[in-house]
């Protein structure tokens, strides 16, 4: 533990803030692949940094990261096996009706400040 105490937490924090800035600025280029990479790729990097340097996952007994990974893998399994029904709008011998794409008539006020940012 004592070795790790010398980690410069402020440096990690600064790195996280820079990554945050990139993840916000990246999508402004409006290139889909860049958006995906900066938004979600960086989210994983940030999560890794927090998990490693703030939560000290690497310093805990081995089963802790395994447990976390198992939970994530089961979630991945859940999504993969569920996606053919939920994500798809048609499949073998079935299809969803048009209501699946239902979007209510836009009553929200578009002039709000929310949009101007």
């Amino acid at each position, binding site marked *: 533990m004592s070795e790790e105490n010398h980690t410069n937490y402020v440096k990690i924090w600064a790195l996280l803030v820079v990554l945050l800035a990139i993840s916000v600025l990246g999508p402004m280029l409006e290139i889909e692949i860049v958006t995906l990479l900066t938004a979600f790729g960086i989210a994983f990097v940030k999560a890794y940094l927090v998990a490693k340097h703030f939560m000290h996952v690497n310093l805990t007994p081995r089963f802790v990261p395994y447990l976390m990974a198992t939970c994530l893998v*089961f979630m991945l399994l*859940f999504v993969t096996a*569920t996606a053919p*029904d*939920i994500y798809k709008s048609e499949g073998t011998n079935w299809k*969803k009706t048009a*209501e*699946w794409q*239902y979007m209510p008539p836009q009553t929200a006020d578009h002039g709000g400040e929310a949009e101007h940012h």
Partner: protein
Amino acid sequence: MAESIPSDAPAVADDHHGHEEPSFWSKYVFSTDHKMIAMQYMFTGMAMAVIGGFMAYAFRLQLAFPGIEVPGFGIVTPANYNALVTNHGAIMIFWVAMPVLIAAFGNYLIPLMCGCDDMVFPKLNRLSYQIFLLSALVLLSSFFVEGGGFGGGWTAYPPLSAKAEYSLTPLGSSIWLGAVALEFVAFLIGGINFITTAMNSRAPGMKLYDIPIVIWMIVIASILFLVSVGPLIAGAIMLIFDQQLGTAFFDPARGGDPVLWQHLFWFFGHPEVYVVLLPALGITAEIITVFARKKLFGYKTVLHTTIATGVLSFTVWAHHQFISGVDPRMAHVFTLTTLLISVPIAEMMFVYIATLYGGSIRLTTPMLWGLSFIAEFLIGGVTGIFLGASGSDIYFHDTYFVLAHFHYTFFPIAIIGTFAGLTFWFPKMFGRMMNDRLGKIHFWGTIIPFNFIFIPLFVLGMGGQHRRIFDYSNFPELSQPWMQDIRILATSALLIMLGFQIVFFYNFIVSLRRGEKASKNPWKSNTLEWTTDSPPPHGNWKELPTVYRGPYEYSVPGRDEDYWPQDQPN
């Protein structure tokens, strides 16, 4: 709260504490002692079992004699019937099997079998029970609100459960769902406590392979619960929002998808079967080894098959949904995994049966329960293959065949497993022996009618009788006289079985007061809980034990006695 003995108190003060007796409230109601919390779980579970049994009584009478006024209940209307079957299922799984098998036995056995003085977080433990009790009260209250209790099946499939205009229970369905969610929170807290205690607070010397199987099973069950319940907690929140706020997570008319709920539910729902199965299997392992005076036939085999079952149980959930509109191609994958999971379970059964080989079998009441668990659970196991194989499930889905199948798994788990554990640990829990003769009468009076209830229902299921119908007169093919005769047969068997439970309660209460005093180790068992007094004092041991060997060293050659307690150096 009870205090530890002051260090300067004389040793003789140990028996009656060196200070005032704790008040009734702090001793029985707000106690943090794991044994007292276990008893609270046990008795709450039993009370809920009585309520669940009463529900079964009401709707079985309605099925046998449609339209009669059920004594003690009244006319069973369609709404009543749906609410009864829904809550019977929910109560028996969430408020009987879970609290008794995991929480009660887990609370009682984990500290005692691991050789420590309490759970690691006693106050969280108490909180867990209090939330559980609250959830039970919330559930029961759902019957008395406007519109009555929820009647959409214990799976609560939306859109039926999501909209009051469909279910006609505007409040009942939300209260029901809230109760289930509270119950999950209670068991999450409890489960973390169990896992942590078993991982961290074992007696010195107790290595991984020295832990009794039942502890392994309860811990693995808690882990399964913890990892599988998350999506359903999220789903329950979404469904409550659909019901009360009018969101459209599961509303197909507004861009939702009802099938998502089915996945969220069964991703939890299938591991849940193993969550309650494993503790019952563990209890059986303890009982069989003690009364056959045999080492378990392959401790590691049992352990590894348990872990394999646990992992596989996460991959099979959609076999509940074969014909519920999931993509037909997915059915092949889930048939494969479902058939795969039968392999470790079958192997575990083989191990249990093989344990009897070369034994010296004593057919005491707990042993009868333990053996009948195997015999009956096998029926539940093999009939599951019909349903796990996608092809035959087309016909059997949602028929009485399914119903009989899962009662052949859940009855052994929840009822037989509980009676096995209760009769086995009764001397330790209450310091007195149960009457063996009455125990055997109760055993046979339960097991024989049980088979007469559910074997006939397999036949009805093969005859195409579908579930959750309060009166079959609307279906000409299902109102043939022979079918009605079978329904009456099943109902009569149920009444007999329920009647025999009076023997149990009589035996329980009389033994509690006047039973023969139990010694420390009446069954000559190895595990640690039998090395302390019966019942164990607060803190369990005067001096916490040290472990020298595995839990199943029975009939070791060259020893005078046929058992070798874990805490004896030689």
